[in-house]
């Protein structure tokens, strides 16, 4: 189910000799395919993200070529729709997010003094699922059906009626795959940051980048489930004929907009907060000063993340929500500017009076401050509904979002690339080329996007594929296109600098910038085990304190290094490579892609995924190094992970239940709930599920005692009660279908079957989990040392139980 970070044999050296034979090259490729090293996975995210970034950039250039002149015919209207849809989707999910993930993966364990993430194999799984999702999305080009309904995919433009081909299916299914990758990674990083910190590294001593990573993981954890539900509804509407976004059947198109933007607005912070974290690391190093008001910067990041959940409807002012909703979301949106402004002033105060070293990284960090301020201010303008109504769907919004996502996110990511490149590659980038890179990007970016404010203000709508001459849009569109190609030139400069550095760049020392945080304490690039000895932390900027103990009056003596899990360098155990993450991701990818081909492919992929999942779960089952996985919180990683996952499930079921409640009484045809729900029968099934929870805790108590007979009895009993519950549900569904209530019959049928069906699927998964544990017990492979495995399964089981408590009340009992 999970794996400890330090178990297994160290991986074999994987660098092929340049003139080595085929076997050596194959071994090198194999070592990357099976790697579970957080640093290699970070590099994989970075490289694949850059490839997708080039693809998304090429799409942007085609868009700008088409708009450079009035009446152009570079592409037709349909292709243009596909280009802006794929450009937005690619840049958000396949470029900026994986760039951030690259930094999370490579740096977070180093910055907190850990040897790897909490679950190295899950980390690999996240990457391979991400890659599967990205390839599936872009396979739509090969199928001749790229998605073309915008990255927001507004209903009912996405319905089968208005988008009859498979294009939206590619989009919806690949986003689900990408969401799964993000959720797995979020759980992993939350556990890593909370539970794998070096001795002495309290939460407030963590680097700001690690803090922003933590905030972003919680945003992913809580923001992705609502869009998952929205996409499930969309997929069911398209594949099974349900009515979630069918106005004629009582559905409400605003439901999609709500679900999308409940995710979509936190997504903006998912994209920008990592850049804020990077800048908060870069500025102090190159200003030679500690970050001004570091705790306030951290609290501001937390507040931005929290407020991010309360402002989604400012994207919907034009949808007509009414004055109360408009006022509430307007106020919330204005409030969010406060912690953002605090950060900007803190960064400026960090630079003020500092011993500035104007490196390329600092150029990009300062560029972010300036450009994001412009994007932030135009964002505050959108917070006013009357102003927003003028700007909605105009190029003003395009300018705003690019100032946030290029001027903010991308400039921050470039700052991070220049700052940490020596650590990652062991070589320095050329600073002169770097500054050219910055200035070309900076000028070209402003040339491309600043005029779009004006174009929007004089009425140019977004998402139009052409325009007539004479509207006054020609010159600034041409300038915008010139700027876009300038951005491409800037990216080429970066690529050239990177290739030059890898080929002949100067060797980087461990600490080329006189850094302040722990990653600079180890060699460049770091060894597989990161640190020879796990460092002990005595304050913020711990490495700087260590290097300059006399600079602060209260600085502690040079800290002693802690032994790495009881030993020094020689005794370090590293996670062993594993083939099962990529096999599991492959199975999942085939199963999802199979939905576009044939049900047999779905089954084949699902079987492969299931088999790989079992092998994944059992790979280290008997390894004693995996028994005790307690971390810095003193709690087992697996227990922190399952509670974190349950937090995400709260949002998943919360959204499903809220959607059911929002649609109550809106069916235009029967059967209606009062005519068909069998409350006495459901009371019995509820009782059955509640009692299964009792058996589950008895099973846990038995395994903790080492009582094998009782363990078998109660595990089997719990699984049996779960099966009985599923039997009740199967009977209920069959009866309803016989009575005329199907998924397609009415809105009640759609919402009821999807809500209770997904709960039933969770129960079924729990039964499989319990039966697996039972098989292990029958084979004598489940003892007291495995109690945590039973406890984790039990927590999942109980959660499924309490979800049913809510469903039973709200769906069946409340009149």
């Amino acid at each position, binding site marked *: 189910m999970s794996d400890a970070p330090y178990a297994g044999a160290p991986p074999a050296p994987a660098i092929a000799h340049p003139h080595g034979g085929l076997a050596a090259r194959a071994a090198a490729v194999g070592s990357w395919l099976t790697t579970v090293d957080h640093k290699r996975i970070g590099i994989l995210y970075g490289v694949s993200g850059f490839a997708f970034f080039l693809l998304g950039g090429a799409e942007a250039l085609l868009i700008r070529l088409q708009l450079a002149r009035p009446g152009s015919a570079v592409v037709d209207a349909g292709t243009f729709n596909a280009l802006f849809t794929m450009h937005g989707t690619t840049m958000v999910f396949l470029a900026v997010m994986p760039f951030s993930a690259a930094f999370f993966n490579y740096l977070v364990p180093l910055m907190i003094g850990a040897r790897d993430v909490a679950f190295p194999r899950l980390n690999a799984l996240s990457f391979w699922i991400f890659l599967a999702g990205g390839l599936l999305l872009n396979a739509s080009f090969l199928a001749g059906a790229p998605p073309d309904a915008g990255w927001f995919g507004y209903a009912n433009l996405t319905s089968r009626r208005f988008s009859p081909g498979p294009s939206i299916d590619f989009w919806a299914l690949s986003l689900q795959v990408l969401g799964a990758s993000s959720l797995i990674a979020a759980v992993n990083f939350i556990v890593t940051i909370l539970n794998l910190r070096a001795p002495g590294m309290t939460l407030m001593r963590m680097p700001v980048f690690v803090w922003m990573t933590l905030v972003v993981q919680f945003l992913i954890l809580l923001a992705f489930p609502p869009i998952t539900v929205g996409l499930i509804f969309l997929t069911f509407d398209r594949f099974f004929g349900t009515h979630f976004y069918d106005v004629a059947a009582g559905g409400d198109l605003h439901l999609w907009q709500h679900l999308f933007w409940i995710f979509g607005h936190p997504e903006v912070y998912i994209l920008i907060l990592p850049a804020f974290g990077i800048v908060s690391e870069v500025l102090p190093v190159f200003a030679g000063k500690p970050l001004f008001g570091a705790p306030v910067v951290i609290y501001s990041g937390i507040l931005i993340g929290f407020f991010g959940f309360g402002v989604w409807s400012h994207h919907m002012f034009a949808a007509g929500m009414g004055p109360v909703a408009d006022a509430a979301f307007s106020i919330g949106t204005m409030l969010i500017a406060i912690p953002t402004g605090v950060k900007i002033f803190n960064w400026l105060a960090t630079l003020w009076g500092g011993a500035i070293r104007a490196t390329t990284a600092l150029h990009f960090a300062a560029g972010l401050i300036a450009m994001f301020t412009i994007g932030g201010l135009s964002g505050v303008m959108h917070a006013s509904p009357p102003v927003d109504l003028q700007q909605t769907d105009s190029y003003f919004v395009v300018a705003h979002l690019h100032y946030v996502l290029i001027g903010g996110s991308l400039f921050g990511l470039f700052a991070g690339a220049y700052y940490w490149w020596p650590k990652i590659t062991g070589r320095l980038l050329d600073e002169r080329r770097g500054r050219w890179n910055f200035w070309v990007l900076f000028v070209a970016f402003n040339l491309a996007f600043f005029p779009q404010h004006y174009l929007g203000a004089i009425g140019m709508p977004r998402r139009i594929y052409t325009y007539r001459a004479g509207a006054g849009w020609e010159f600034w569109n041409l300038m915008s296109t010139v700027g876009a190609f300038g951005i491409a030139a800037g990216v080429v400069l970066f690529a050239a600098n990177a290739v030059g550095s890898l080929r002949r760049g100067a060797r980087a020392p461990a600490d080329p910038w006189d850094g302040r945080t722990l990653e600079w304490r180890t060699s460049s690039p770091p060894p597989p085990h990161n640190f020879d000895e796990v460092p002990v932390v005595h304050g913020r900027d711990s490495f700087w304190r260590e290097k300059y103990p006399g600079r602060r009056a209260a600085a502690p003596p040079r800290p002693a290094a802690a032994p790495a899990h009881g030993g020094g360098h020689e005794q370090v155990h590293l996670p062993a490579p594993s083939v099962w993450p990529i096999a599991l991701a492959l199975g999942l990818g085939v199963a999802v892609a199979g939905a576009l081909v044939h049900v047999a492919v779905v089954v084949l992929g699902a079987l492969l995924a299931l088999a790989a999942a079992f092998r994944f779960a059992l790979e280290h089952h008997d390894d004693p190094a995996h028994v005790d996985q307690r971390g810095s919180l003193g709690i087992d990683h697996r227990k922190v992970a399952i509670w974190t996952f349950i937090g995400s499930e709260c949002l998943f079921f919360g959204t499903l239940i809220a959607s059911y409640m929002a649609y109550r009484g809106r069916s235009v045809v029967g059967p209606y709930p009062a005519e068909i729900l069998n409350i006495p029968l459901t009371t019995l099934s509820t009782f059955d599920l509640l009692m299964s929870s*009792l058996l589950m805790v008895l099973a846990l108590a038995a395994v903790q005692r080492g009582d094998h007979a009782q363990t078998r009895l109660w595990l089997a009993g719990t699984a049996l009660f779960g099966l009985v519950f599923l039997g009740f549900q199967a009977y209920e569904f069959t009866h309803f279908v016989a009575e005329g209530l199907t998924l397609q019959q009415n809105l009640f049928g759609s919402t009821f079957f999807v809500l209770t069906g997904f709960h039933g699927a969770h129960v079924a998964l729990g039964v499989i989990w319990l039966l697996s544990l039972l098989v292990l017990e029958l084979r004598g492979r489940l003892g007291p040392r495995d109690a945590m495995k039973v406890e984790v399964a039990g927590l999942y089981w109980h959660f499924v139980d309490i979800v049913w408590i809510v469903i039973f009340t709200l769906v069946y009992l409340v009149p």
Partner: protein
Amino acid sequence: MSVHGAHGPGGERGHASVRTYITVAVILAIVTALEFGVIYIRQLTPILVPLLLVMSAAKFALVALFFMHLRYDARTLSTLFVGPLVIAAALGISLITMAGAFLVFGR
């Protein structure tokens, strides 16, 4: 309420005794029976919805506190659960309210 063991390294205390588990299960069964019963008592109609919500919340809390051990485990785990639960509830209530807001406030 007796528990096994002392405080663990993460601020965890031992879990509840088997007797406690059975007591909780009996209470859950009784409350479920009451939920079923009250919907047929006409006199309770004015307070039926809040009554059902309170009983449902009580069952939810019992399972979370005892079967899921939140009463005994480290506070960090409670935070990981309660934080998202509150956000889920707030978002859910907002969504339901806004779905009906068009009727209440007009467009």
